C-alpha cells in the first residue's frame, strides 16, 4: 500500500534536491497535522502524532 504522504511535490524538474526534500517534508507535516486535527490537548494524541510524523519523514529520506 502506498504511503499517503508520497505526494508529488510542486517543484520544477530543475529544483535542487534540497528544495525537493524541503517541499516533501512540508507536505508530510501538513498531511499529518490535518489528520490529527481532533487531537485537542490530549497528551497521547500528541505523542502518536509525533510518532507518525517521524515515521513518515524517515520513509521520505
Amino acid at each position, binding site marked *: *500500500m502506498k*504511503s499517503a504522504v508520497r505526494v508529488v511535490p510542486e517543484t520544477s524538474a530543475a529544483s535542487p534536491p534540497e528544495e525537493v526534500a524541503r517541499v516533501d517534508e512540508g507536505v508530510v507535516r501538513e498531511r499529518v497535522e490535518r489528520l490529527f*486535527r*481532533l487531537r485537542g490537548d*490530549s497528551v497521547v494524541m500528541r505523542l502518536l502524532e509525533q510518532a507518525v510524523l517521524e515515521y513518515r519523514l524517515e520513509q521520505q529520506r
Partner: protein
Amino acid sequence: MMALSVETILSGAKRLPTMPTVVMELMLAFADDEIDNEALAQKLSRDQALVARVLRVANSPFYGLPRQVATVQESIMVLGLANVRTMVTAAAIIAQFPHRNNADFDISAFWQHSIGVACCARVLSVRAGQNPNTAFICGLLHDIGRVVLASSYPEHQALVAEYRNREDCCWLDAERAVLGLDHAAIGAALAASWNFPEPIRQAVAAHHLPETSADTPLAALTHVGDVICHALDAGHDPSAMVPVLSADAWARMRIEWSDLKALFAEIERMIEGASVLVGGGANTKAAVAVRPTLAAAEA
C-alpha cells in the same frame, strides 16, 4: 424521513445478510485448539463458494507460495490451521455484504479500512496478550453498523455524510447528531442477532468507548487499532481524521512509544498483504515480508 432506531434497522432492513453456519462454527472454533485439519476441511467443504475463496487467498501473493495449492487440506498444511481459519472467516464475512457503492459510501474503501484495523488489532494483540485471530475479526467487524446503515438506509446515510462534510467531524458524531444513534450500536445489535461470540460483540459495541468496558480488552484493542489505522492514513481520504485515542486503552496495550515506528512498518506490510481479501493487489515483495509477521502472530 422515517426516524431510525436499532430495532427498526434490524427488523425493517430486508437486505441484511445472514451469516452462514460455517462462519459461526469457524469463529467459535478460534478458541478451540483441538480442532483438527480434517474437521475444518469438512466444515469448509459444505460451502463450495468458501472453498473457492480459501484457494484464492491461499494462492494469492499474500502468501507467496512457490506452487499452487489445490485443496483445502493442502492449504491448511502449507499455511497453518490458524491462518486459514482466520482468512476464511474474514473472506466469508466480506462476501455476505452487498458490494454496491452509493454516492455517499464507498464499499471498497470501507472494507480496506476494516482490513486495516483488523491488521492493526492483530499486530497489537501479541503485545496485549489477546488471541490474534479473534482480534483480527474484531477489527474486521468493528464498523459493520456503517455498512448496514449505508446499504439499507442510503437516504439516512446521505444526511449523515452531508452533516459530516459540513461540520468536519467524525462519523460517530455525525450519526449521533443526525440519527440519534451510531454505527457502534447498530453493529452491536447486528452482531448479537448473528450470535457472534460475546467478546466480538463487545468490541463492536465499545470500540469508540473503551473506557466503559474495562473487562473487555478486545474493545480497547479494536479502539487502538482503529486510531492507528486512521493515523497511518491507509485510506488516502482527504477528509480523514484520527479519532481521539483513549489514554486508558493505550495503556492497556503495553507498547513503548519508542517501539511504535517498528509496529507501524509491520502493520503496513500486513495491510498490503491482506488487501487481497477485498480484491486489492499485494505486491510480491510485501507479501513475502508479511509471512514471518503472520507466523509470529500465531505463536
